[in-house]
């Protein structure tokens, strides 16, 4: 099985997992879910690391640097702002009179 076909299998199966996981999320959590998922899409940082860390070609390294900056903003900012939101979600305090 060629690499591309194998990767396609993984892609399709992972998409199904995604649909299953997310279709049950209640509307209350849609904003944090979107912002958290957004942070996860910053996973592309792994590719950026490789491009910036190789030494074959300096132009590519600079492109990789820009990719790391972009992806890190996405990852760090995304997870932090999601955490900030979820921190505020509280259940009704039963001791509250």
């Amino acid at each position: 099985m060629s690499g591309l076909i194998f990767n396609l299998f993984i892609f399709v199966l992972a998409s199904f997992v995604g649909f299953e996981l997310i279709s049950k999320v209640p509307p209350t959590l849609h904003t944090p879910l979107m912002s958290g998922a957004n942070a996860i899409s910053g996973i592309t940082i792994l590719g950026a690391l490789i491009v910036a860390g190789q030494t074959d070609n300096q132009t590519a390294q600079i492109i990789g640097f820009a990719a790391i900056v972009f992806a890190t903003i996405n990852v760090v900012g995304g997870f932090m702002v999601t955490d900030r939101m979820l921190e505020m979600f509280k259940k009704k305090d039963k001791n509250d009179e």
Partner: protein
Amino acid sequence: MSNFLPPSIQAVLPNIIQLIYLVATGIFIFGIKRLGSPATARSGNQLAALGMLIGVVVTLFDQQILSFEYIIGGIVVGSAIGMFAAKKVEMTAMPEMVAIFNGFGGGASALVAWGEFSRAVDPAAFATQDLVTIGLSILIGSITFTGSFIAFGKLKGFISGNPITFPGHNIFNALLTLGTLGLVGWLAYDPASQLIFWLLFGIALLLGILTVIPIGGADMPVVISLLNSYSGLAASMAGFVINNNLLIISGALVGAAGLILTNIMCQAMNRTLTNVLFGAFGGDGGSGSGPAADTDKTVRETTPDDVALQCAYAKKVAIVPGYGLAVAQAQHALKEVVDKLEKRGVEVKYGIHPVAGRMPGHMNVLLAEADVPYDQLYDMEQINPEFKSTDVVLIIGANDVVNPVAKTEPGSPIYGMPVMNVDEADRTIIFKRSLSPGFAGIDNPLFYEESNQMFFGDAKDSLQALAKSLDEV
């Protein structure tokens, strides 16, 4: 970093890295699962962040990585910007924030593909399938990048929220889309051609702008969800380029999430995705395309004392908040009113329309910020059957989502959109600045109903006045 390790470990390192990627994948899936319930969501997000950290650290041991200046520099700069933005952003500005982060994610994926492409000494040495994935990664990543920035600009008001179109816009976009796909194919056929590469990159960036600019400000929630899906797809494509399963899987998960949320938003607005993308509907208000409020119909204006009296002696009060509440920064004033009512033994529930706010679930976050417990918030399906037994509904800064026209007038643009059945309650009180129509520019007959009263003014001032009056009842 791999050269610091003993040779025996170096030999099996690629396998170790893959296995740890597998662990990170599991952590992501588990994290997303925990994001599905309010009680576990925070830990779910933290788990996902942990998965990301593991992925990054392990990748540093990849044998291709030999220099670290650019990596360290990039991470420091990116983290500083990301942290600053995450700490400073107002909760009302979350949609813009998500849009711009999205853009950066998509942009990063395009850059990864570009970097991989330019790193090769001889582009012709690439296998055809690699060139196709590089082309697609650049295409999707670039569309996400510029599209997200346009969405950001529209939400922020830098760019007019009204649809911006020119004659033949949709046909032109369709041709461009076909053109870019053709260029991806051409790149695979002739990778040595710089011209083709740059043409693809340039047109993809342009396409991002041209696809989002004709979409009205009111439809931005759908666009953001869709772009979120794209940024996942772009990451997945970048995974195909560098042959990395963790990227492919995480990207696919995000792609699926974005697609589901897009679908939910479309349903809540009773629109098809095609209509949102190509319909050039829904300005940013202001332009008032709808008919002006009829002058011969009368509305009943009310006072804080009167509202206080009605609410204080009600059994059951429902609150329907809209984005106007957030614009007026009146969440805390609302919470104060609700606290006072609850102290008197009134049962209070918040009814949240799926498109209240500027993105799916936005209103819930805004109310959470004002310390409203999430178990007091009810989805539209949960609260709709309850309006019949509700004494007073306070509608604050919402308009289209309570417009009965959506149920009664087949000719109306919002006909068929699921709305809150507030007209079934004994009494409705609308907090509003004026009689102007909302986003969709459609007059609301509820204003003139016998059972309705208008409480004119800024939402925050009105609620503060109401809180004060409640003390005196």
